[in-house]
């Protein structure tokens, strides 16, 4: 159990007063981000990232991941009390959370959500603890061709497993790749796709894209819907909270099933949103109380929440061990790691064990702190949300504009963010998934480098991608995933059939 010793070292790093304080601050900021519609986890982390450039990487990543936990938890508060998901990944929580709250059991609904979320997150972190160094060791054997195969698999799984139109996923992803190629080419030093516009030579930062697509785009959507918060009042009392916590083990079947779904969807880049929808759907189909789903059934809260959080934490495993993020937020964090001068991937485990294990240890603590803080701040956020959106909206706008500027101190970036905002709005309304765009933007250069290096070693023969068992298995799986939509269509009959509504939503709003 070498991992255990390293985890203890990690705790020694994470449990300093300074870092615990950073966790609390991060969780609180995350709660704000999670509670406010229009400010999501990917966007929140992007906004905070430029402010961490001066911090040391360990403190910075603890701050950002804590914010991520806070955002995941905060999203459920609004889902349950206001029937408005603060995060795309907590959409499924509204289905049963809000009805239960309407029946006068708001505290029970909230406690159920947070406890199962905590259990989900814990499962995810345990999976990371057990598997990450094993995966990293495995990945040490990877050459350029293997890396490209892994990237290929990640992107193929987006196209193959997404519920909506695979073509829209393809377009969104390729636009991300195109955006990533703008600027100086790392291998040849030539400037590409800049069309002699000076501002583009430095490239387009993925942070700008995230702020525009997720931040301003979501704001426009929220504004259009003319949001009115009609909330359920919640008075917290200790007795109900404790009784509900004691009730949770009764749902162990749902918990285990949802945690497994979450871990799987988090490690493969399905992301928390898809995980929560899938878990809810499977819960409705397999639970004995399935027909109560949608009417305020506790299992209907437990299922999506557990999956959401285990996926959220598991999304960090491939990011750390392989350098491939499992969700949009993880992609942003990985971009951050690269900016801090760390290169995510197997080498990180041997070069910076203090960083990796400090981060993993902080995940245990961060989630614990998040559960406590989220319960403690429910009344506060319920109060904030009574402010009309005509006030909250402009405030979020200002945060986004400043955030876009602070990325590189360029005014041009703010204009770009506005443009991305319009793109994000239109794409979301038309069910184009945005997560592949961000993923492609962060991974674009690395995937291209891996491809070009592999081709250089093989003198331009694509046979290198099938040169040994490992790489051909991965490429084969990738191709299979790519063909998945085609296979489903053949089975269901009828080309261009409409996808199921739930799938399309999960897919369109993937976080």
């Amino acid at each position, binding site marked *: 159990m070498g991992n255990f010793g390293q985890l203890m070292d990690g705790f020694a790093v994470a449990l300093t007063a300074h870092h615990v304080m950073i966790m609390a601050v991060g969780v609180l900021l995350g709660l704000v981000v999670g509670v406010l519609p229009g400010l999501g986890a990917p966007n929140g982390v992007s906004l905070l990232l*430029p*402010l961490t450039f*001066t911090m040391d990487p360990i403190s910075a990543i603890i701050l950002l991941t804590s914010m991520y936990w806070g955002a995941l938890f905060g999203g459920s508060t609004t889902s349950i009390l206001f029937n408005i998901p603060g995060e795309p990944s907590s959409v499924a929580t509204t289905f049963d959370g809000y009805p239960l709250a309407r029946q006068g059991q708001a505290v029970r609904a909230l406690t159920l959500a947070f406890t199962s979320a905590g259990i989900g997150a814990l499962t995810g972190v345990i999976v990371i603890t057990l598997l990450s160094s094993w995966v990293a060791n495995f990945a040490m054997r990877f050459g350029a061709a293997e890396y490209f195969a892994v990237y290929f698999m990640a992107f193929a799984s987006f196209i193959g497993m997404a519920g909506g*139109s695979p*073509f*829209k996923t*393809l*377009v969104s992803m*390729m*636009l991300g*790749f*195109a955006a990533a*190629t703008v600027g100086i*080419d790392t*291998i*040849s030093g*030539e400037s*590409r*796709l*800049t*069309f002699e516009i000076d501002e583009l030579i430095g490239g387009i930062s993925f942070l700008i894209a995230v702020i525009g697509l997720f931040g*301003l785009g979501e*704001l*426009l959507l929220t*504004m*259009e819907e*003319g949001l009115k918060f009609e909330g359920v009042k919640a008075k917290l009392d200790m007795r109900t909270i404790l009784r509900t916590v004691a009730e949770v083990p009764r749902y162990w079947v749902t918990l285990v099933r949802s945690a497994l779904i979450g871990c799987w969807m988090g490690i493969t880049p399905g992301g928390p949103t898809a995980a929560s929808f899938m878990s809810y759907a499977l819960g409705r189909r397999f639970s004995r109380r399935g027909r109560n789903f949608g009417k305020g059934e506790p299992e209907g809260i437990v299922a999506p929440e557990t999956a959401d959080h285990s996926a959220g934490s598991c999304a960090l495993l491939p990011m750390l061990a392989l350098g491939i993020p499992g969700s949009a937020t993880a992609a942003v964090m990985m971009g951050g790691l690269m900016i801090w001068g760390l290169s995510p991937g197997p080498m990180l485990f041997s070069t910076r064990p203090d960083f990796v294990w400090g981060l993993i240890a902080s995940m245990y603590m961060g989630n614990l702190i998040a559960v406590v803080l989220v319960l403690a701040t429910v009344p506060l956020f319920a109060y904030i949300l009574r402010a*009309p959106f*005509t*006030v909250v*909206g*402009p*405030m979020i*706008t*200002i945060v986004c*504009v*400043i955030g876009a*500027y*602070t990325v590189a*101190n360029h*005014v041009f970036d*703010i*204009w770009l963010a*506005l443009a991305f*905002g*319009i793109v994000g*709005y*239109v*794409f979301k*309304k*038309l069910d*184009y998934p945005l997560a592949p765009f961000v993923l492609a933007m962060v991974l674009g250069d690395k995937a*291209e480098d891996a*491809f*070009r290096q592999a*081709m*250089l070693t093989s003198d*331009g023969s694509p046979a290198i991608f099938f040169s040994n068992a490992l790489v051909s298995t991965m490429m084969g799986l990738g191709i299979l995933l790519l063909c998945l939509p085609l296979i489903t269509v053949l089975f269901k009959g009828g080309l*261009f059939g*409409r996808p199921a509504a739930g799938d399309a939503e999960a897919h369109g709003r993937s976080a």
Partner: protein
Amino acid sequence: MDISRNTMEIATACATALVGGIVCYGASLNGISWNESGPQPGYFPFYIGALIIFGSAATILQTVLRRASTSDVFIDGERLRTIVAFFLPIVVMVAISAWLGLYIGMALYTFYAMRMAAGFRTATSLLTAAIVVAVNFVIFEKIFMVPLLKGPILEYFGIY
């Protein structure tokens, strides 16, 4: 003035196809073939652009084939006005910020949003604008030491 979903689908797909075309053209400037040192810089982007065009074309085809079954509205006139009324002031704010600095931009925007859009009293709106500027100034200039764009007016008063 309603815009149907189908119209928007096709317009968006045409726009993405156009972007794909631009990407292909831009890549061709860097050379898209192979030379003795491997793929030229434009090789990878060229196929990215081609895939964008392919995906867009498939989306257009999908929309056309489905046309009869869907008559959804993408946005109606009223909602469009709401969006424009929200978005235009942001554009104005960015334009002002680029010229006079972010602090002046955000002050004017906050005042506008409070007074005109949310309908608060003038005094309340002024106070809110002042608070927003003060809070941001403390957070960015003092706590995180990240200077925001000041512009000529603040510099005239000696604030850098």
